[in-house]
């Protein structure tokens, strides 16, 4: 704590996580304060007439009127540097594993620990020489943080100047690796650079300019990749009632999505789910690099029984870490489970402040806060010179996927509605599908994606990708209409070709859309998805053709090749093209026979 601050405030009122204090002069909005004898971490959220309102990130039981409040004079910051990957933090970026070593199995109040490993020596390799002029964001040197991630030590976004000293060798996060003489216009003077820097979490990290999202984030989940893709640098929401598979879908994305770094924020959710990630991720391999998944993952766990205000902060801590890796030129995926709990934290604090409530008791600024958060996603040209000397800019992205937990599964509630307005992809989870154990329970009639990637798919997957996915969607839509009729009059009333639509749509649902998050089918490459879809649609076309020549539907559906199609899911990703082509040949042959 800063010893120069002379003013100590006094607590005058306590109501849950909201504390009021007087006597804190020169304190600014969003400054971090330490409350009471225990030194609980809090943040200034309101100032008026000498009274400072503070939201406290820890349980306030036992705090008395008259206890001291110290200001740190700093906003809530995230510590950014090597050692973030593989860590588990709480909402205030306290490393949970270190806390466990200090305080045992339960989280005690008022404890703190440094977010980055302090005594670990990182091998620093400089990329600049003495005398070089460096700008904000330029890479001074690199540290190999994990097998796949080269951690680029960047000039702080508010700095530029000449390199006076640059060292190489092994350093911990507090040791000086470079000294920079700041330019005159940037106040001048010398500044010592360490491997770590800090950044206020509520403030987006700057970039040169923002770009339109151009390529999809391939997730390994077929229904998403084929029908409702999300962009690298885009945003998506997954609303769904309890038990519809929000968390399982988010975990699948965290495992298999085509991102360099994944930041997973468990915001007000179950403790055992975080344990699941913690136990499983070190054992799983990234399908692209073969390195353990934990080496590209940062976890933020603020479970539902941890203090509410820290839940509010956890989202910002997460996105700041995501932006930091984006600035190095990586594609980052940030997952938030669940943004509804974050909204509820806002509501609770707002209620304690006795603010005028908006819809369903949520504060009127809920929509604005959600919009600010989702807009921190994006594909950007980063500050600083390009990493690859042949490229003329450094591009990074943060994609945000937020789970939403609407009460009663009703999407008309404020958090879902406000999120829908700002997120460009909408994966609606459906009770009915989940009860049939159709997973992922993404409802294909209400979900949407506003991104159009047909160029990318044409170049990187196959020219007919877009047509296939459009035809398949039309088939599913036709099935919905026909099922309405079946509900009223039964299947018998349908004509043969319509029954064929139902039969093939069923194959599409069961053998393509359904994908188990646990078995061998849990990761499906985009090429495998393409070949599977192509086979099913090919079967559909041939079936239609055969029926024109009066082949009865029963003969088509009882073809042995139907069960080959059902087993396409189990084919290994490596030899997918060859094996599926054999199946397609068999489809062709079977219809030839007919």
């Amino acid at each position, binding site marked *: 704590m800063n010893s120069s601050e002379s003013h100590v405030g006094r607590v005058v009122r306590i109501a849950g996580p909201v504390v009021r204090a007087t006597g804190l002069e020169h304190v600014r909005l969003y400054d971090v304060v330490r409350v009471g004898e225990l030194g609980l971490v809090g943040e200034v959220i309101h100032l008026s007439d000498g009274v400072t309102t503070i939201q406290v990130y820890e349980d306030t039981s036992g705090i008395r*009127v008259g206890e001291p409040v110290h200001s740190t004079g700093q906003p809530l910051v995230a510590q950014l540097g090597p050692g973030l990957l593989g860590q588990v933090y709480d909402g205030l970026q306290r490393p949970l594993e270190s806390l466990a070593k200090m305080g045992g199995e339960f989280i005690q109040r008022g404890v703190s620990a440094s977010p980055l490993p302090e005594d670990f020596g990182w091998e620093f390799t400089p990329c600049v020489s003495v005398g070089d002029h460096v700008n904000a964001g330029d890479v001074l040197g690199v540290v190999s943080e994990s097998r796949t991630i080269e951690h680029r030590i960047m000039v702080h976004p508010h700095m530029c100047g000449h390199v006076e000293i640059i060292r190489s060798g092994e350093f911990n996060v507090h040791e000086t690796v470079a000294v920079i003489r700041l330019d005159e216009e940037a106040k001048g003077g010398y500044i010592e650079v360490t491997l770590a820097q800090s950044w206020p979490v509520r403030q987006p990290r700057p970039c040169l300019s923002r770009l339109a999202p151009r390529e999809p984030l391939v997730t390994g989940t077929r229904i998403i990749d084929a029908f409702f893709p999300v962009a690298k640098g885009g945003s998506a929401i997954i609303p769904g009632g*309890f038990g519809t598979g929000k968390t399982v879908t988010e975990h699948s994305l965290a495992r298999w999505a085509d991102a360099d770094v994944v930041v997973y924020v468990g915001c007000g959710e179950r403790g055992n789910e975080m344990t699941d990630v913690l136990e499983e991720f070190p054992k799983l391999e990234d399908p692209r690099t073969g390195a353990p998944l934990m080496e590209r993952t940062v976890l933020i766990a603020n479970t539902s029984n941890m203090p509410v205000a820290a839940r509010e902060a956890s989202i910002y801590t997460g996105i700041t870490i995501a932006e930091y890796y984006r600035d190095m030129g990586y594609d980052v995926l940030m997952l938030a489970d669940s943004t509804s709990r974050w909204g509820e934290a806002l509501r609770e604090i707002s209620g304690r402040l006795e603010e005028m409530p908006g819809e369903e008791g949520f504060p009127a600024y809920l929509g604005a806060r959600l919009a600010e958060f989702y807009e921190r996603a994006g594909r950007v040209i980063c500050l600083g010179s390009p990493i690859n000397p042949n490229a003329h800019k450094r591009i990074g992205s943060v994609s945000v996927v937020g789970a939403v*937990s609407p009460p009663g599964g009703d999407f008309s509630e404020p958090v879902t509605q406000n999120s829908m307005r700002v997120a460009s992809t909408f994966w609606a989870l459906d009770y009915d599908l989940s009860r049939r*154990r159709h997973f992922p329970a993404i409802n294909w009639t209400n979900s949407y994606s506003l991104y159009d990637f047909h160029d990318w798919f044409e170049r990187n997957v196959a020219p007919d990708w877009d047509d296939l996915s459009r035809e398949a969607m039309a088939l599913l839509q036709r099935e919905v209409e026909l099922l309405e009729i079946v509900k009223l009059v*039964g299947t018998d009333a349908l004509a043969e070709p319509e029954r064929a639509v139902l039969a093939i749509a069923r194959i599409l649902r069961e053998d393509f859309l359904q994908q188990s998050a646990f078995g061998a089918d849990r990761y499906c490459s985009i090429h495998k998805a393409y070949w599977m879809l192509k086979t099913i649609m090919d079967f559909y076309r041939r079936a239609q053709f055969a029926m024109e020549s009066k082949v009865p539907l029963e003969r088509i559906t009882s073809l042995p090749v139907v069960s080959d199609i059902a087993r396409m899911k189990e084919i290994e990703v490596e030899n997918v093209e060859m094996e599926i082509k054999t199946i397609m040949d068999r489809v062709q042959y079977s219809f030839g026979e007919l």
Partner: protein
Amino acid sequence: MLKTIPLPRLFATEHRTVSQIKGPLIFVDRIADVAYNEIVEIISPDNQTRLGQVLEVDQQRCMVRIFLGTSGLGLDRTRVRFTGDVARLGVSLSMLGRVLNGSGQPIDGGPPIIPERSLDINGLPINPSMRTHPSEFIQTGISAIDGLNTLTRGQKLPIFSGAGLPANELAAQIASQARVIGEGAGKHDEPFAVVFAAIGITQRETSFFMDQFHSSNAMDRTVLFVNRADDPSIERLLTPRAALTAAEYLAFTHHRHVLAILTDMTNYCEALREISAASEEVPGRRGYPGYMYSDLASLYERSGRIHGNPGSVTQLIILTMPDDDITHPIPDLTGYITEGQIVLSRDMHRKGVYPPIDVLPSLSRLMNDGIGPNKTRADHRSVADQLYALYAEGRDLRRLVAIIGEGALTAEDRRVLDFAKRFEGKFIGQKRINRDVTETLNAAWDLLTPMPAELLKRIPKEFIEQYHKSGR
């Protein structure tokens, strides 16, 4: 019992400055040095002491909620003593076999409990990085649970019931039948305990549970916390906290495997709404406070396993869905916190099916970790998926038949329809028989036998060859 440890003060401060009494709340003026959440002793004009808790405090006054009600209190002759401590429960191993009231005082006529430790009843959150993922199969003897919605050690699983449905019978049956088998089971009998929190339940229900515990000789490893329907409603806010404090103590200090049964959480939520309305908070959905999710989570999350600690807390939570509505805030928020749910169905109950579990909306999120080879059986997952798929289809067909009649169905459809009927009658409706997991899986294969093997798409070939009679 619920007690307080006085802070080392020279003298206890006593106030006679009650300025307002409103429902379960009193306001005390001209106070000094009062802590948030502090426990307060209120001495009524007739010299009775009751406990309260500070809900809000500022320089002039504080708001106190009184757990045992405010009747008989007056403004001028009521004395308020601030204890300087939060609510604590004295815990000890000798609590086993005892019946305590909702605040933790013995009501069975026995001697007072001599505490080994005195613990804050609000507990502390378990550090997520210290949790161990629950993965040990608990056999409950009930097919709908063991076969399709498996319970694991350290899980929190609620039973969503409706008024008049036999949730309590089911809970008592699980408490007496629960066993750990498979690789998680130790060679010797593992120390097991039940902590039972009765929250606002009737005398009839209380005596039902007492009889059950006595008749299954489980009483000496059970602690009961009883807040009856006619006890003060605000005490219901203490009861589950006191019970879970005892459960954590038995599990993590004395290394027991604790099954904590909380019934009925609907009464708890009603009490929460009452106190919220009295303190004039902004109401959330249906008048329940906006923080009900966090409040329920602070209870339900007190279950699980910890690295390097052999004990565990498994929670079985019973709640009544008002008007059988699963979207009501109480079941809804509970479902968002717990690891699955068992839903009881009035339709099944009317048909005489016991236990009347509707498996379609039921779910156990930790099932995959608790089943499979060495735990239950290799075919378990795929059999469960197959039963679900066929039963869901059967239920759809049943709706269709109601409109167009059975005549319009194909032969295959009729088989599925028949399956659904046998599934409800034989597999779910097992009556009070205790089935082990092999019997449950065999019962499942008995249902699947009349189905042609081609229809069993969810089951890999090798299991069909091994278990399906026509496939052999």
